């Protein structure tokens, strides 16, 4: 969540409220269950960590959604690192989806490239799991667990294929909203 919020600020400084709307737009129905205050909690944490700075818009009442948030240089570095990362410890589809949306919006990176990098990483993992599965004797318990790992990676790879198709159409339609 923190990384996704930071990446949204890469496009331009923004009100908390505006970030919330964009997040809801990108996540569609999946974002409906999001606690409305969550974005402000996240922004406060990011500010404390020195990754964003907050400026109050002049002449407006002191309310959290009147604050304009912007990335600090450290925040920018963190966004760049997040975009380059190909981690997939627990497949977090929403986070990866938001990464693509943010990368495209801020023209920070080519979403198709991000998908390709992720796909390569997952294929390497699939290769490892597949080889281990092939080495297991038929009916072994570890073989069954590896089968589960293989099937999950396969499903993820198919989803990445769909991402690749959608984003390679060269517009922001995949962003939704």
């Amino acid at each position, binding site marked *: 969540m923190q990384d996704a919020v930071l990446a949204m600020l890469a496009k331009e400084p923004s009100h908390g409220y505006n970030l919330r709307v964009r997040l809801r737009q990108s996540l569609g129905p999946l974002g409906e269950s999001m606690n409305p205050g969550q974005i402000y909690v996240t922004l406060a944490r990011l500010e404390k960590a020195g990754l964003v700075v907050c400026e109050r818009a002049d002449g407006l009442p002191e309310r959290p959604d009147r604050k304009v948030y912007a990335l600090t240089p450290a925040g920018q570095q963190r966004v760049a690192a997040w975009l380059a990362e190909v981690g997939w410890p627990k497949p977090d589809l929403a986070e990866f989806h938001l990464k693509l949306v943010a990368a495209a919006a801020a023209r920070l990176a080519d979403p198709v490239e991000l998908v390709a990098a992720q796909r390569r990483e997952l294929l390497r993992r699939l290769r490892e799991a597949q080889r281990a599965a092939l080495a297991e004797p038929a009916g072994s318990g570890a073989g069954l667990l590896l089968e589960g*790992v293989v099937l999950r990676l396969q499903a993820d790879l198919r989803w990445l294929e769909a991402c690749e198709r959608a984003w390679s159409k060269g517009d922001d339609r995949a962003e939704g909203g």
Partner: protein
Amino acid sequence: MNVSSAVVRVRGLVKDHGQGQSRVRAVDAVDLEVPQGQMLAVMGPSGCGKSTLLHLLGGLERPTDGEAWLAGRRIDTLSERALARLRRRSVGFVFQAFHLVEELSAAENVELPVLLAGRSRREAGCRASLLLERVGLADRARHLPSQLSGGQRQRIAIARALANDPLVVLADEPTGNLDTAATLDVLRIFEALRSAGQTLVIVTHDERVAATADRLISMRDGMFVDDTRLAGSHTRGLGGLIGLEG
């Protein structure tokens, strides 16, 4: 790369299907080198040209433009007869639908290409029993294809592809008609072939098959859009895959 080490090599390969208005470019200026012993997988959506590419590599079709070599020998300029001879002796094909001769037994299907290459009945028989053994079907030698499961038929087809000890095995969706268990049997055979230094090019839809390869090329609209080396790149180990680490 040393040219002589590339079993398969193509330069600027182009293949058009159809004529005039309905002309479609199936393969669009592709360059490729597959070194001896490499297992290469080619993936891409239907109609991206991957099967056509495989046919061009094996001399089943001729390119519209560009050049193709097999083990250093130019093949796109060969006569029909020389090309047929080369295919029989130096290329092993495996297809999705097996393409076995239904009237012949498993062993006879494997013997056939050996006989067609001009070797003796005895040699063909020896070769067939050796190869059926290798694909785990020695006990099915006298069965007709119709008496075998899909997975068993594909293993016979692989044995047949290996009959003349080909320079390269070209497989087009080899697991496309198989269930998971049969797919794993085929992958185990490919893995054994790879360990033995057999050069393989496999066109597939199945990520599982692709992940077994050393190298993966992704195709789209007749072109290569990605070329990834999968071999020798270790990630965080299997523990990481099931969340035991981190």
